[in-house]
Protein backbone atom coordinates (compact mmCIF):
# COMPACT_ATOMS: atom_id res chain seq x y z
CA UNK A 1 0.00 0.00 0.00
CA UNK A 2 1.05 3.58 -0.48
CA UNK A 3 2.67 5.86 2.05
CA UNK A 4 -0.29 8.15 1.68
CA UNK A 5 -2.71 5.66 3.17
CA UNK A 6 -0.25 5.03 5.98
CA UNK A 7 -0.15 8.73 6.76
CA UNK A 8 -3.92 8.89 6.59
CA UNK A 9 -4.33 6.22 9.23
CA UNK A 10 -1.58 7.82 11.31
CA UNK A 11 -3.70 10.97 11.19
CA UNK A 12 -6.69 9.00 12.42
CA UNK A 13 -4.64 7.75 15.33
CA UNK A 14 -3.52 11.31 16.14
CA UNK A 15 -7.15 12.43 16.01
CA UNK A 16 -7.81 10.10 18.94
CA UNK A 17 -4.88 11.41 20.97
CA UNK A 18 -5.29 15.15 20.40
CA UNK A 19 -7.94 17.19 22.21
CA UNK A 20 -10.22 19.86 20.78
CA UNK A 21 -8.52 22.54 22.91
CA UNK A 22 -5.19 21.82 21.18
CA UNK A 23 -6.66 22.63 17.78
CA UNK A 24 -9.25 25.34 18.47
CA UNK A 25 -8.79 29.10 18.08
CA UNK A 26 -9.02 30.40 21.64
CA UNK A 27 -10.87 33.59 22.62
CA UNK A 28 -12.87 33.87 19.41
CA UNK A 29 -14.53 37.02 18.09
CA UNK A 30 -18.05 37.17 19.55
CA UNK A 31 -21.07 39.36 18.99
CA UNK A 32 -24.15 40.23 21.09
CA UNK A 33 -27.82 39.70 20.07
CA UNK A 34 -28.20 43.44 19.67
CA UNK A 35 -25.15 43.83 17.38
CA UNK A 36 -26.41 45.20 14.01
CA UNK A 37 -25.88 42.97 10.96
CA UNK A 38 -23.94 45.83 9.33
CA UNK A 39 -21.42 45.60 12.16
CA UNK A 40 -21.25 41.81 11.75
CA UNK A 41 -20.46 42.32 8.08
CA UNK A 42 -17.47 44.54 8.98
CA UNK A 43 -16.28 42.06 11.58
CA UNK A 44 -16.40 39.11 9.19
CA UNK A 45 -14.54 41.09 6.56
CA UNK A 46 -11.90 42.64 8.81
CA UNK A 47 -11.17 39.53 10.89
CA UNK A 48 -11.39 37.20 7.89
CA UNK A 49 -13.82 34.84 9.61
CA UNK A 50 -17.03 33.27 8.39
CA UNK A 51 -19.13 33.22 11.55
CA UNK A 52 -19.22 34.16 15.22
CA UNK A 53 -20.79 32.85 18.45
CA UNK A 54 -23.40 35.11 20.01
CA UNK A 55 -22.99 35.85 23.72
CA UNK A 56 -25.50 37.43 26.06
CA UNK A 57 -24.21 38.26 29.56
CA UNK A 58 -21.36 35.80 29.04
CA UNK A 59 -23.73 32.99 28.03
CA UNK A 60 -23.69 31.34 24.63
CA UNK A 61 -27.13 31.99 23.10
CA UNK A 62 -26.60 31.45 19.39
CA UNK A 63 -24.31 31.44 16.41
CA UNK A 64 -24.40 33.68 13.35
CA UNK A 65 -22.66 32.99 10.05
CA UNK A 66 -21.90 34.52 6.69
CA UNK A 67 -24.86 32.55 5.29
CA UNK A 68 -27.25 34.36 7.64
CA UNK A 69 -25.72 37.63 6.48
CA UNK A 70 -26.20 36.76 2.79
CA UNK A 71 -29.84 35.80 3.42
CA UNK A 72 -30.39 39.17 5.11
CA UNK A 73 -28.80 41.03 2.23
CA UNK A 74 -30.92 39.15 -0.32
CA UNK A 75 -34.09 40.01 1.54
CA UNK A 76 -32.92 43.62 1.93
CA UNK A 77 -33.13 43.33 5.73
CA UNK A 78 -29.83 45.07 6.46
CA UNK A 79 -31.03 47.08 9.42
CA UNK A 80 -31.81 44.16 11.74
CA UNK A 81 -29.75 42.92 14.70
CA UNK A 82 -27.92 39.60 15.06
CA UNK A 83 -30.47 38.32 17.59
CA UNK A 84 -33.25 38.07 15.02
CA UNK A 85 -31.33 36.06 12.42
CA UNK A 86 -28.91 33.89 14.41
CA UNK A 87 -29.37 30.14 14.88
CA UNK A 88 -30.52 29.65 18.44
CA UNK A 89 -29.94 25.93 18.53
CA UNK A 90 -26.19 25.82 19.12
CA UNK A 91 -24.22 22.62 18.88
CA UNK A 92 -21.02 22.78 20.91
CA UNK A 93 -17.89 20.75 21.54
CA UNK A 94 -16.15 20.36 24.88
CA UNK A 95 -12.53 21.47 25.16
CA UNK A 96 -11.46 18.01 26.34
CA UNK A 97 -13.26 16.07 23.58
CA UNK A 98 -10.90 14.07 21.36
CA UNK A 99 -10.47 15.62 17.91
CA UNK A 100 -11.97 12.52 16.30
CA UNK A 101 -15.24 13.34 18.04
CA UNK A 102 -15.15 16.82 16.54
CA UNK A 103 -14.52 15.39 13.07
CA UNK A 104 -17.55 13.13 13.29
CA UNK A 105 -19.71 16.01 14.61
CA UNK A 106 -18.71 18.12 11.62
CA UNK A 107 -19.56 15.27 9.26
CA UNK A 108 -22.88 14.62 10.94
CA UNK A 109 -24.00 18.28 11.19
CA UNK A 110 -22.46 19.72 8.04
CA UNK A 111 -21.49 22.94 9.83
CA UNK A 112 -18.37 24.94 9.09
CA UNK A 113 -17.55 25.79 12.69
CA UNK A 114 -18.47 24.71 16.21
CA UNK A 115 -18.10 26.74 19.42
CA UNK A 116 -16.00 25.06 22.11
CA UNK A 117 -17.08 25.25 25.76
CA UNK A 118 -15.48 24.29 29.04
CA UNK A 119 -17.13 21.06 30.19
CA UNK A 120 -17.52 22.10 33.84
CA UNK A 121 -18.57 25.76 33.51
CA UNK A 122 -20.17 25.73 30.07
CA UNK A 123 -18.24 28.93 29.33
CA UNK A 124 -17.19 29.62 25.74
CA UNK A 125 -13.44 29.06 25.40
CA UNK A 126 -12.86 28.84 21.65
CA UNK A 127 -14.09 28.00 18.20
CA UNK A 128 -13.13 25.13 15.93
CA UNK A 129 -13.23 24.74 12.15
CA UNK A 130 -12.13 21.83 9.93
CA UNK A 131 -9.23 24.06 8.91
CA UNK A 132 -8.10 24.25 12.54
CA UNK A 133 -8.23 20.46 12.78
CA UNK A 134 -6.14 20.00 9.65
CA UNK A 135 -3.54 22.52 10.78
CA UNK A 136 -3.27 20.88 14.20
CA UNK A 137 -2.88 17.37 12.77
CA UNK A 138 -0.24 18.44 10.27
CA UNK A 139 1.72 20.27 12.95
CA UNK A 140 1.65 17.25 15.26
CA UNK A 141 2.75 14.94 12.43
CA UNK A 142 5.70 17.18 11.79
CA UNK A 143 6.62 17.42 15.48
CA UNK A 144 6.52 13.63 15.95
CA UNK A 145 8.62 13.08 12.85
CA UNK A 146 11.18 15.77 13.66
CA UNK A 147 11.69 14.69 17.26
CA UNK A 148 12.86 11.21 16.30
CA UNK A 149 14.87 12.58 13.38
CA UNK A 150 16.69 15.00 15.68
CA UNK A 151 17.44 12.29 18.25
CA UNK A 152 18.84 10.11 15.51
CA UNK A 153 20.81 12.87 13.86
CA UNK A 154 22.40 14.09 17.07
CA UNK A 155 23.36 10.64 18.35
CA UNK A 156 24.58 9.11 15.12
CA UNK A 157 27.08 11.93 14.59
CA UNK A 158 28.95 11.36 17.84
CA UNK A 159 31.33 8.92 16.20
CA UNK A 160 32.12 11.32 13.36
CA UNK A 161 32.18 14.55 15.35
CA UNK A 162 34.58 13.51 18.10
CA UNK A 163 38.21 13.66 17.02
CA UNK A 164 40.08 10.78 18.55
CA UNK A 165 42.03 7.66 17.63
CA UNK A 166 39.40 5.57 19.29
CA UNK A 167 36.02 6.37 20.80
CA UNK A 168 33.48 4.50 22.89
CA UNK A 169 30.22 5.62 24.40
CA UNK A 170 29.19 4.10 27.72
CA UNK A 171 25.87 4.10 29.45
CA UNK A 172 24.51 2.44 32.57
CA UNK A 173 21.09 1.14 33.55
CA UNK A 174 19.95 0.12 37.04
CA UNK A 175 17.93 -3.08 37.26
CA UNK A 176 15.69 -3.52 40.30
CA UNK A 177 15.33 -7.10 41.49
CA UNK A 178 11.80 -8.47 41.74
CA UNK A 179 10.27 -5.49 39.93
CA UNK A 180 8.42 -7.35 37.19
CA UNK A 181 6.49 -4.28 36.24
CA UNK A 182 9.58 -2.52 34.92
CA UNK A 183 11.40 -5.67 33.81
CA UNK A 184 12.54 -5.09 30.24
CA UNK A 185 12.57 -1.31 30.39
CA UNK A 186 16.38 -1.11 30.61
CA UNK A 187 16.87 -3.26 27.52
CA UNK A 188 14.18 -1.32 25.75
CA UNK A 189 15.93 2.01 26.41
CA UNK A 190 19.29 0.52 25.47
CA UNK A 191 17.81 -0.72 22.19
CA UNK A 192 16.37 2.71 21.31
CA UNK A 193 19.70 4.36 22.14
CA UNK A 194 21.69 1.94 19.99
CA UNK A 195 19.37 2.57 17.04
CA UNK A 196 19.81 6.31 17.52
CA UNK A 197 23.58 5.84 17.47
CA UNK A 198 23.10 4.52 13.97
CA UNK A 199 24.07 0.88 14.61
CA UNK A 200 22.75 -1.72 12.17
CA UNK A 201 19.32 -3.09 13.09
CA UNK A 202 20.70 -6.63 13.01
CA UNK A 203 23.45 -5.90 15.55
CA UNK A 204 21.01 -3.96 17.71
CA UNK A 205 18.63 -6.90 17.66
CA UNK A 206 21.27 -9.31 18.91
CA UNK A 207 22.44 -6.96 21.67
CA UNK A 208 18.85 -6.19 22.68
CA UNK A 209 17.74 -9.81 22.96
CA UNK A 210 20.85 -10.85 24.90
CA UNK A 211 20.54 -7.87 27.24
CA UNK A 212 16.87 -8.55 27.77
CA UNK A 213 17.58 -12.15 28.79
CA UNK A 214 20.22 -10.89 31.23
CA UNK A 215 17.88 -8.22 32.60
CA UNK A 216 15.15 -10.81 33.21
CA UNK A 217 17.67 -12.99 35.08
CA UNK A 218 18.50 -10.08 37.36
CA UNK A 219 14.83 -9.32 38.01
CA UNK A 220 13.93 -12.96 38.67
CA UNK A 221 16.90 -14.25 40.67
CA UNK A 222 18.77 -11.31 42.22
CA UNK A 223 18.22 -8.25 44.40
CA UNK A 224 19.20 -6.17 41.35
CA UNK A 225 22.28 -4.85 39.63
CA UNK A 226 23.64 -2.79 36.79
CA UNK A 227 23.77 -3.02 33.02
CA UNK A 228 26.75 -1.27 31.46
CA UNK A 229 26.90 -0.91 27.71
CA UNK A 230 30.02 0.23 25.93
CA UNK A 231 29.62 1.09 22.27
CA UNK A 232 32.76 1.37 20.23
CA UNK A 233 33.35 1.62 16.51
CA UNK A 234 33.75 -2.10 16.10
CA UNK A 235 31.81 -3.71 18.90
CA UNK A 236 29.20 -3.33 21.62
CA UNK A 237 30.11 -4.84 24.97
CA UNK A 238 27.48 -5.25 27.68
CA UNK A 239 28.49 -6.02 31.26
CA UNK A 240 25.81 -7.18 33.68
CA UNK A 241 26.66 -7.31 37.38
CA UNK A 242 24.48 -8.17 40.35
CA UNK A 243 24.87 -8.65 44.08
CA UNK A 244 22.76 -11.79 43.96
CA UNK A 245 23.01 -15.31 45.24
CA UNK A 246 25.53 -16.36 42.60
CA UNK A 247 25.46 -19.39 40.30
CA UNK A 248 26.55 -22.67 41.97
CA UNK A 249 27.40 -24.48 38.74
CA UNK A 250 28.09 -22.29 35.73
CA UNK A 251 28.34 -25.22 33.31
CA UNK A 252 24.88 -26.41 34.32
CA UNK A 253 23.46 -22.91 34.04
CA UNK A 254 24.68 -22.80 30.45
CA UNK A 255 22.93 -26.07 29.59
CA UNK A 256 19.82 -25.42 27.47
CA UNK A 257 16.70 -26.26 29.45
CA UNK A 258 18.36 -26.28 32.88
CA UNK A 259 16.36 -24.04 35.19
CA UNK A 260 15.85 -23.36 38.86
CA UNK A 261 12.97 -20.98 38.24
CA UNK A 262 9.98 -21.17 40.59
CA UNK A 263 6.51 -21.84 39.13
CA UNK A 264 5.32 -18.23 39.28
CA UNK A 265 8.19 -17.20 37.03
CA UNK A 266 7.35 -19.96 34.57
CA UNK A 267 3.72 -18.83 34.59
CA UNK A 268 4.93 -15.51 33.26
CA UNK A 269 6.57 -17.17 30.30
CA UNK A 270 10.10 -17.09 31.68
CA UNK A 271 12.44 -19.49 33.44
CA UNK A 272 12.57 -22.12 30.68
CA UNK A 273 16.31 -22.49 31.11
CA UNK A 274 17.16 -20.82 27.83
CA UNK A 275 18.39 -17.41 29.02
CA UNK A 276 22.15 -17.91 29.28
CA UNK A 277 22.28 -20.35 26.32
CA UNK A 278 20.42 -17.75 24.25
CA UNK A 279 22.90 -15.05 25.20
CA UNK A 280 25.82 -17.32 24.31
CA UNK A 281 24.23 -18.09 20.95
CA UNK A 282 23.62 -14.43 20.09
CA UNK A 283 26.91 -12.94 21.24
CA UNK A 284 30.26 -13.16 19.49
CA UNK A 285 31.98 -13.55 22.84
CA UNK A 286 30.82 -14.18 26.37
CA UNK A 287 32.40 -14.39 29.80
CA UNK A 288 30.61 -15.48 32.97
CA UNK A 289 31.97 -15.30 36.48
CA UNK A 290 30.14 -15.91 39.73
CA UNK A 291 30.76 -16.43 43.44
CA UNK A 292 28.15 -18.05 45.64
CA UNK A 293 26.52 -15.58 48.02
CA UNK A 294 28.34 -12.65 46.46
CA UNK A 295 27.88 -11.78 42.80
CA UNK A 296 27.45 -12.79 39.20
CA UNK A 297 29.37 -10.93 36.53
CA UNK A 298 28.39 -11.51 32.91
CA UNK A 299 29.97 -9.83 29.93
CA UNK A 300 29.14 -10.32 26.28
CA UNK A 301 30.14 -8.60 23.07
CA UNK A 302 28.60 -8.25 19.65
CA UNK A 303 30.74 -7.23 16.68
CA UNK A 304 29.46 -4.44 14.48
Amino acid at each position, binding site marked *: *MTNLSKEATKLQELAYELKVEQAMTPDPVTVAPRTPMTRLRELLRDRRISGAPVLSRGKLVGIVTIEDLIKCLMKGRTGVAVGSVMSQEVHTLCADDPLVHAVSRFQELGFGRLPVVDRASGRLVGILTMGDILRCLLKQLEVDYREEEIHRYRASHIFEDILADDIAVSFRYQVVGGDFHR*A*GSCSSRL*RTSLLRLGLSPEAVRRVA*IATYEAEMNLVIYTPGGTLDARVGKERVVVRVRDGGPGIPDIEKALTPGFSTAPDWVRAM*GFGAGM*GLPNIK*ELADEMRLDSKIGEFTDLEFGVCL
Partner: protein
Amino acid sequence: MNLIKIRQLLEASVLCGAESIDQEIQCGGGADLMSDVLALMEPNSILLSGLTTLQVVYTAEMSGVMAICFVRGKRPPPEAIELARARGIVLMATRLPMFESCGRLYKAGLKGSSEVPPGTARPGKRRHP
Protein backbone atom coordinates in the same frame (compact mmCIF):
# COMPACT_ATOMS: atom_id res chain seq x y z
CA MET B 1 0.93 -11.54 3.90
CA ASN B 2 -0.10 -8.22 5.34
CA LEU B 3 -1.71 -7.54 8.69
CA ILE B 4 -5.06 -6.65 7.13
CA LYS B 5 -5.34 -10.19 5.78
CA ILE B 6 -4.17 -11.67 9.08
CA ARG B 7 -6.74 -9.63 10.93
CA GLN B 8 -9.48 -10.99 8.65
CA LEU B 9 -8.31 -14.59 8.99
CA LEU B 10 -8.23 -14.38 12.78
CA GLU B 11 -11.40 -12.28 13.02
CA ALA B 12 -9.30 -10.11 15.30
CA SER B 13 -9.79 -6.61 16.61
CA VAL B 14 -6.94 -4.09 16.52
CA LEU B 15 -5.97 -2.73 19.95
CA CYS B 16 -3.32 -0.30 18.75
CA GLY B 17 -1.14 0.55 15.77
CA ALA B 18 -3.97 0.80 13.24
CA GLU B 19 -1.72 3.07 11.17
CA SER B 20 0.65 0.17 10.48
CA ILE B 21 -1.98 -2.38 9.54
CA ASP B 22 -0.85 -2.45 5.90
CA GLN B 23 2.63 -3.77 6.78
CA GLU B 24 3.90 -6.94 5.17
CA ILE B 25 4.59 -9.77 7.59
CA GLN B 26 7.27 -12.27 6.67
CA CYS B 27 6.47 -15.11 9.02
CA GLY B 28 4.68 -16.04 12.20
CA GLY B 29 5.04 -17.95 15.42
CA GLY B 30 3.02 -18.91 18.46
CA ALA B 31 4.51 -19.09 21.94
CA ASP B 32 3.75 -18.54 25.59
CA LEU B 33 7.38 -19.06 26.55
CA MET B 34 9.18 -15.76 26.18
CA SER B 35 12.56 -17.46 25.91
CA ASP B 36 11.25 -19.32 22.86
CA VAL B 37 10.16 -16.03 21.35
CA LEU B 38 13.62 -14.56 21.93
CA ALA B 39 15.35 -17.62 20.53
CA LEU B 40 13.12 -18.31 17.55
CA MET B 41 11.19 -15.32 16.31
CA GLU B 42 12.36 -13.57 13.17
CA PRO B 43 12.09 -9.83 12.59
CA ASN B 44 9.08 -8.60 10.61
CA SER B 45 6.91 -11.31 12.09
CA ILE B 46 3.69 -11.74 14.00
CA LEU B 47 3.65 -13.40 17.41
CA LEU B 48 0.58 -15.23 18.66
CA SER B 49 0.52 -15.52 22.41
CA GLY B 50 -1.75 -16.38 25.30
CA LEU B 51 0.33 -14.25 27.66
CA THR B 52 -0.73 -10.63 28.02
CA THR B 53 1.93 -9.13 30.31
CA LEU B 54 4.07 -6.07 29.65
CA GLN B 55 6.95 -8.47 29.09
CA VAL B 56 5.33 -9.89 25.96
CA VAL B 57 5.54 -6.43 24.41
CA TYR B 58 9.14 -5.93 25.56
CA THR B 59 10.04 -9.39 24.27
CA ALA B 60 8.46 -8.62 20.91
CA GLU B 61 10.29 -5.32 20.73
CA MET B 62 13.66 -6.98 21.35
CA SER B 63 13.04 -9.60 18.67
CA GLY B 64 11.90 -7.08 16.09
CA VAL B 65 8.41 -8.62 16.08
CA MET B 66 6.06 -6.28 14.25
CA ALA B 67 2.70 -7.41 15.60
CA ILE B 68 1.26 -9.44 18.46
CA CYS B 69 -2.11 -11.15 18.43
CA PHE B 70 -3.46 -12.28 21.79
CA VAL B 71 -5.45 -15.48 21.49
CA ARG B 72 -8.50 -16.96 23.22
CA GLY B 73 -10.16 -13.63 23.93
CA LYS B 74 -7.47 -12.39 26.33
CA ARG B 75 -6.91 -8.66 26.64
CA PRO B 76 -3.63 -7.05 27.74
CA PRO B 77 -3.52 -4.42 30.52
CA PRO B 78 -3.65 -0.75 29.41
CA GLU B 79 0.09 -0.31 30.19
CA ALA B 80 0.93 -3.02 27.66
CA ILE B 81 -1.15 -1.28 24.98
CA GLU B 82 0.50 2.06 25.79
CA LEU B 83 3.96 0.51 25.57
CA ALA B 84 3.17 -1.16 22.25
CA ARG B 85 1.81 2.09 20.86
CA ALA B 86 4.98 3.92 21.90
CA ARG B 87 7.17 1.24 20.34
CA GLY B 88 5.22 1.02 17.08
CA ILE B 89 4.05 -2.56 17.60
CA VAL B 90 0.59 -3.53 16.35
CA LEU B 91 -1.58 -5.31 18.93
CA MET B 92 -4.58 -7.46 18.02
CA ALA B 93 -6.90 -9.76 19.94
CA THR B 94 -8.83 -12.78 18.71
CA ARG B 95 -11.32 -15.06 20.45
CA LEU B 96 -9.82 -18.07 18.61
CA PRO B 97 -7.59 -20.41 20.62
CA MET B 98 -3.87 -20.70 19.88
CA PHE B 99 -4.01 -23.87 17.76
CA GLU B 100 -6.75 -22.62 15.49
CA SER B 101 -5.18 -19.18 15.14
CA CYS B 102 -1.85 -20.66 14.06
CA GLY B 103 -3.65 -23.17 11.83
CA ARG B 104 -5.63 -20.55 9.96
CA LEU B 105 -2.56 -18.45 9.24
CA TYR B 106 -0.41 -21.42 8.23
CA LYS B 107 -3.14 -22.80 5.98
CA ALA B 108 -3.40 -19.40 4.30
CA GLY B 109 0.30 -19.56 3.46
CA LEU B 110 2.06 -17.66 6.25
CA LYS B 111 5.46 -19.23 6.85
CA GLY B 112 6.92 -20.35 10.15
CA SER B 113 10.12 -18.78 11.43
CA SER B 114 12.26 -21.76 10.41
CA GLU B 115 10.89 -21.66 6.86
CA VAL B 116 11.86 -18.19 5.75
CA PRO B 117 14.77 -18.17 3.28
CA PRO B 118 18.10 -17.98 5.10
CA GLY B 119 19.84 -14.66 4.91
CA THR B 120 16.71 -12.55 4.64
CA ALA B 121 15.76 -12.56 8.26
CA ARG B 122 17.73 -15.11 10.26
CA PRO B 123 20.00 -13.42 12.77
CA GLY B 124 22.97 -15.62 11.81
CA LYS B 125 26.04 -14.70 13.75
CA ARG B 126 28.40 -12.58 11.74
CA ARG B 127 32.01 -13.42 12.49
CA HIS B 128 34.79 -10.90 12.55
CA PRO B 129 35.49 -9.55 9.08
